[in-house]
């Protein structure tokens, strides 16, 4: 009998990551408040949010290092609690903090990881050689890891995560502490991995890093506030952004409010979102009752999107409004 539709095929290819109603509480603190998330196979997916938003908690649960309080998370169909070892076999992970043995050579680190995953020695050797070469570490890999530069060490972490040829690569703030050049090199490697079809899930609080992703989930205080492609997220704001610095921002905000403009966030600058930002600048300059010291018009960045959604910057350190009733769109009650 010819099989036309295989009912099993759908079950056999579940999404790379599937998170449903995930909650994590630490005592009274709710670090994750019901996360729903699906990452398809082959996606380059970013989880973007400020420090303390819940990124690392979500990451740790997916990495089988913490258990959720409620809800489920599956990686390639395997439950992260009841089927830990199956999940672990699918993943290569780069942590925020170093996870290599500094005194051993890069190559030995890779071979040991191969051993932990049960790779045949010959395979591990071949993978280690290939990886070190493709990451430009062919020579450095022979030296003790502690002798490498920060950027080389991060690339070695990437190689460690890739030794087992995992179906999904997990990166948690993988470029923390690297300079701009080293970060660029690191991400060009990640992008080429994604281009080759590997699923990549990463967390970051740098918006320019998230730009490389196909889709981005914006996370804030334990909830996903938006999930879309970078382009679609920015298009949500519609048009562009005007940033103003004035002699008296409070007065300017009041005036803008009275004249039908919506000021986003409560940062040091006034931020307006408008369909045609360049067209309103002359009007603003003419009519604002306070002196304008600086005007900037630009296409919206992810930072603007985040600010628009949460009333806060990604840096996460900006003071939150004291008198403000809440982020726009949430102060309706």
């Amino acid at each position, binding site marked *: 009998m010819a099989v036309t539709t295989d009912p099993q095929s759908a079950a056999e290819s579940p999404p790379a990551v599937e998170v449903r109603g995930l909650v994590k509480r*630490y*005592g009274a*603190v709710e670090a994750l408040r019901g996360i729903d998330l699906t990452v398809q196979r082959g996606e380059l997916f970013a989880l973007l949010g400020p420090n303390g938003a819940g990124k690392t908690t979500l990451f*740790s649960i997916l*990495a*089988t*290092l*913490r*258990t959720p309080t409620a809800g489920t998370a599956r990686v390639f169909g395997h439950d992260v609690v009841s089927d*830990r*070892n*199956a999940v*672990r*076999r699918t*993943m290569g*992970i780069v*942590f925020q*903090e*170093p*996870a*290599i*043995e*500094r*005194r*051993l050579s890069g190559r*030995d680190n890779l071979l*040991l*990881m191969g*051993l*932990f*995953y*049960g790779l045949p020695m010959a395979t591990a050797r071949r993978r280690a050689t290939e990886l070190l070469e493709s990451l430009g570490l062919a020579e450095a890999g022979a030296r003790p890891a502690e002798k490498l530069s920060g950027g080389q060490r991060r690339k070695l972490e990437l190689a*460690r995560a890739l030794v087992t040829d995992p179906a999904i690569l997990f990166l948690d703030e993988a470029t923390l502490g690297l300079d701009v050049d080293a970060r660029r090199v690191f991400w060009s490697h990640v992008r080429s991995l994604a281009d080759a079809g590997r699923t990549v899930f990463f967390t970051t609080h740098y918006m320019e890093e998230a730009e490389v992703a196909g889709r981005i989930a914006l996370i804030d205080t334990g909830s996903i506030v938006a999930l879309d492609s970078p382009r679609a997220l920015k298009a949500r704001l519609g048009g562009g952004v005007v940033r103003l610095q004035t002699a008296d921002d409070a007065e300017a905000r009041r005036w803008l409010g009275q004249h039908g403009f919506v000021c986003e966030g409560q940062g040091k600058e006034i931020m307006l979102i408008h369909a045609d930002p360049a067209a309103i600048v002359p009007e603003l300059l003419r009519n604002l009752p306070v002196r304008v010291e600086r005007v900037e018009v630009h296409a919206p960045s992810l930072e603007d999107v985040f600010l628009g959604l949460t009333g806060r910057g990604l840096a996460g350190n900006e003071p939150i409004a004291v008198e403000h009733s809440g982020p726009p769109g949430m102060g309706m009650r």
Partner: protein
Amino acid sequence: MIRGIYAIVVLDLKRAWLDRARLAAGLAQPLLYLFVLGAGIGGSSRLGGGEYRRYIFPGVLGLSLLFSATFAAIVIVFDRQIGFLKAVLVAPIPRAAIAFGKITSGAIQAFAQGVVILPFAPLAGVPLSPLSLLTLLGAMLLSSFVFSAMGVAVAARFTSTTVFPVISNALLLPMFFLSGALYPLQNAPHWMQVATRFDPVAYGVDLMRGAVLGRYFFQPGLSVAVLVLLVAALGWVSVRVFMRGEDDSSLGATQFRWRR
């Protein structure tokens, strides 16, 4: 499971090999006991220097095994601090394999340290026939596993390496002194003879001494049984400690629990 244990042992031994100078440095303390303390105390005891040296040789072996096994266990605490452990924790190997691997690698390192001392046996006046050497090696191996399991069960709970000297003074020295390593238990006060029965080191040292001198304080069968039971019990405790870490990625270290 076996693969996980093997991987941990390879990792630990590879690292220990970087510190192979420690094997030589580790000789200093036992030799000091043997030839300085031994000569000093032996000279003024009824036994005489030579006889006393012969007597404490197995005790010094025990001391060496005990301290090097404990030191090997301390590496767990270092691991936690440098992060390599995290990469191991997300590898598809059971937590129990990590515990057993740590115990095995510690035992191998302790055993190696003991073996390095054996060539000094003739100098200490200890005659070793092939049979007594074989018995001695067996006793050393068993003791190494007990001491290593003790170290892992304790070290896996700590996150700070500064506690090591405290533990060594509070636990290791009393165990060493009560073990009869440095003096015959037969002449010790009654309370010590009772206390020594609760000292794991005493059974190990007694087996080793029996192997070389042919005189046992405990029944050798009893010693073997006690040591085997101890390995099993301490192994179980270690596994429990490592399993507890399954849910909070801390490997059971209490100070690493999330607090806010």
